[in-house]
């Protein structure tokens, strides 16, 4: 009997969680109507650009470092089995463009930006600052949710592209230094780019749009669930990160299985 109650409670909790996320998604769409108002659109653009900068531009260095080392490692491993650099392209697209690039970029977004947003929203909730906006009849969802919802997918897409580009450069560098030195960077990149089909572009874009939007909604959901205790913030960050990692892996692997 206790097990049935526990299972029921678990299911109930998860159903409520998904319904809450759906509600937040609908709220986001509803708040989008404010963008038709010129003065509100101005506020949105300031916050949106700030978010893009924090999420995308400021992540360039960590993105570059990880992409650089990943390119080296993949090239090093592949070189053992495929000495000819020109044959490397297919492996590169399958491993990096389809899977590792999106996954690692998503992990960077989650660990850097989503956790920061959860902490920020949690702090605002803890100190009743949403009440302050409510007292001025300013929509908190418009100020905090909308910029994140729209900037995260765009940032993620650009991170994918940038990550793949840096990995390509570092792989070519490794292969031309330790393997086949006859291949130029231009022909190496052309070999890889010619392997990228419309399907890869579509699936990568979907991973960015769906993954990025959900990362934005989920991190804000957990931030706004903070109660009256300071420790609620760290708890929210922990739960948020766990949910985000699970969600992002499921989406990436799910889309890859469906498409490829």
């Amino acid at each position, binding site marked *: 009997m206790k097990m049935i109650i526990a299972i029921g409670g678990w299911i109930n909790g998860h159903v409520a969680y998904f319904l809450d996320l759906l509600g937040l998604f609908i709220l986001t769409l509803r708040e989008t109507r404010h963008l038709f108002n010129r003065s509100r659109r101005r506020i949105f653009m300031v916050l949106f650009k700030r978010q893009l900068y924090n999420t995308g531009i400021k992540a360039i260095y960590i993105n570059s470092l990880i992409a650089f080392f990943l390119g080296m490692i993949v090239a090093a491993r592949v070189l053992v089995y495929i000495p000819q650099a020109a044959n490397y392209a297919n492996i590169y697209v399958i491993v990096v463009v389809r899977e590792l690039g999106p996954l690692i970029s998503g992990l960077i977004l989650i660990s850097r930006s989503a956790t920061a947003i959860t902490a920020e929203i949690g702090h605002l909730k803890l*100190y009743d600052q949403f009440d302050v906006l409510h007292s*001025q009849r300013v929509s908190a969802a418009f100020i905090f949710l909308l910029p994140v919802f729209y900037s995260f997918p765009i940032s993620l897409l650009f991170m994918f592209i940038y990550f793949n580009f840096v990995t390509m450069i570092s792989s070519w560098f490794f292969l031309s230094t330790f393997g086949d030195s006859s291949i130029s960077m231009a022909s190496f990149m052309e070999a890889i780019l010619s392997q990228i089909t419309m399907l890869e572009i579509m699936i990568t874009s979907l991973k960015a749009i769906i993954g990025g939007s959900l990362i934005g909604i989920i991190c804000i959901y957990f931030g706004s669930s903070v109660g009256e205790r300071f420790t609620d913030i760290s708890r929210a960050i922990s739960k948020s990160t766990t949910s985000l990692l699970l969600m992002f892996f499921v989406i990436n692997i799910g889309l890859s299985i469906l498409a490829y």
Partner: protein
Amino acid sequence: MLELKDIRIQFENNIVFDDLSHCFDTSSITCIKTGVLDGGTSLLKCCAGIIKPALGSVSLDGRSIENINDQDIFNDINFCYESGGLVSIFTVYNNIALPMVYHGKYTEKEIRQRIKDIAKKLGIADLLQVEPHQLNDVHTRLANLTRALVISPKLLLVDELQAGMSPEMREAVLEVLTDYQKRDEFTLIMTTTAGDENSFADYRYKIFEQHLVETT
């Protein structure tokens, strides 16, 4: 005119006001003396529509607060917090300007000028570009007041403005506030504590046994 009718304000089992009915005259100044945890802030927040009464109704010029749309509430009613009242990720200037830009109340140039003028009169012009965590309590309340005076609502609710001020500062700030009140003819309701000045008020009350009792 602000009218409270059969108001009950309750938090779980704690009833702070019960069966409270009162009218605040248009363009009048009312000071309500409060003690600790007697519901002064809750009363003001109820008048502002920030919290709902458990029973009863609040009306402004005959319209129930619950039925007034957000734009009109913003234009007509403003609440100044005793502590906080500012969003920590924005500067003081942006905290003041944001609601006005959001509601399209004035042009950016007008907003900038109004904020500059009032901040200068209240002595916080140098603090407009700092963040809320860099302000002390008094300056935080003055930032709240600056925002309210820039908006210039019909009803202004100010929670314990004078706490922590020196006598000179108190006199200067109250002079600015009453000058604006006379000029814009808004209704001002302010909570005060022991030692605060209230001689400028038209009506003076204190909170006693869940009601407002008139004092001299």
